[in-house]
């Protein structure tokens, strides 16, 4: 585990994560960061303990006004007929490596599981490749690989983009980001990521990104189409 991580999810985001309130794409990117970041992992444990105490607090605001009208005795009678599980079924651990230039990167477990059905890499432009994951119908989730020396056209986000750096580094106007860093960008930021050494990221967008300068703007309808397509896949 990396103890030298600079950028983390906010406490508010971590809290919504432990409460189960985030959409799948966001939950996955936060979970992957936690696997790489000891301090967030510890913080999430504390937040969960708080969530549990407020959950069981009889005066908690969480208590619903509505009460359940379910037939408890019938439920119990049905449940206790089920067999119990004596030992955890160990699912064969999925390992997914992504090969880059002269080395390979082992994905965090949650991403490996999500990517275990195979990744389809597509070259986008100027040394950038992307491979999408279909996790829910509200976000666009993709691995993004930037070859050394390449840059993404200046763009902004209409919603927000959460990015986890998995290998290498990239930088924009606001800073330099290294492995395990968790970055959030939204409509306030107009940025142009570039990478000198090359970089593998996992990014989750909750709305299409929008190029704001030059010919790249011609791509905006494509971005919108791509987002719509990514979020319309169903089970």
């Amino acid at each position, binding site marked *: 585990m990396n103890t030298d991580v600079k950028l983390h999810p906010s406490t508010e985001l971590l809290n919504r994560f432990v409460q189960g309130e985030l959409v799948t794409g966001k939950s996955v990117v936060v979970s992957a960061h936690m696997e790489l970041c000891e301090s967030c992992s510890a913080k999430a444990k504390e937040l969960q303990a708080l969530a549990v105490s407020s959950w069981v607090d009889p005066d908690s605001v969480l208590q619903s006004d*509505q009460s359940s009208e*379910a037939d408890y005795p019938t439920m119990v009678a049905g449940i206790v007929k*089920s067999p119990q*599980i004596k030992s*955890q079924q160990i699912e064969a651990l999925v390992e997914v490596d992504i090969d880059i230039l002269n080395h390979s990167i082992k994905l965090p477990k*949650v991403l490996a599981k999500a990517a275990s059905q195979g990744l389809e890499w597509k070259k986008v432009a100027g040394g950038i490749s992307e491979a999408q994951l279909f996790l*829910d119908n509200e976000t666009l989730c993709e691995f993004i690989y930037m070859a050394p020396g390449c840059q993404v056209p200046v763009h902004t986000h209409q919603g927000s983009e959460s990015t986890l750096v998995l290998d290498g580094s990239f930088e924009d106007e606001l800073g330099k980001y290294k492995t395990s860093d968790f970055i959030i960008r939204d409509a306030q930021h107009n940025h142009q990521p570039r990478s000198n050494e090359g970089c593998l990221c996992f990014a989750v967008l909750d709305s299409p990104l929008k190029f704001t300068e030059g010919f790249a703007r011609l791509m905006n309808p494509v971005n919108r189409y791509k987002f719509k397509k990514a979020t319309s896949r169903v089970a």
Partner: protein
Amino acid sequence: MYRNYAKQNVGNNEVALAVRLASVNTSTLSPDPEDADISDEALLIAVGNSQNVDAFNQLFKRFAKKIFALGMKLTRNEQLANDLIQESMLNVWQKAPLYDLDKGSAKGWIFTLSRNRCFDMLRKQKRQPNCISADDIWPLESGAEPTMVHEDIGGQQVELSLIEGYFDQLSDPQRAVVEQIYSKDRTHEEAAAHLQIPLGTLKSRLRLAVAKLRNLIGVNE
């Protein structure tokens, strides 16, 4: 204090449960004064070790409304919230033997199961791709261990007296578990029932104890 276990095992009444509570390693429990006399942990252990239906009923009464409230908060749908009670409490029953009291409270464990079932229910309802589930996003820490250890402590035959020399370096709970399995030759289930701890806890304590003994004796894996 464990001697009367066989008798207790027959009775399903609260007195028997209260007696069991007394013999659970109380140092790891934090009884909530607002609760009835029996801790959630003791109830969960009775469910996991002896399929005690009364204990399960008690847990159901304590948690059904809370699970419903959680479901209402996350789904805003009464039918789904009721389904969540069913799904979560079924999970509590099925997985009770895997609960490990060394890793956290029964409340926390039941919260985790309920949140995860709710997440999966919502995904299914929204027909989201099923390449991933809640248990991948929030990996359960209890029980999910790749190796199990009912085997020789050393690769070769080691004198029991030699091992016993190291017993005092184990914690009390670890030593109790090792004695049950290696000296009294009990099965995991028997030992868990005897010590009144969840099977999941027994397995994790045993694994830690054996690793420590191996290390002390100088046996390589």
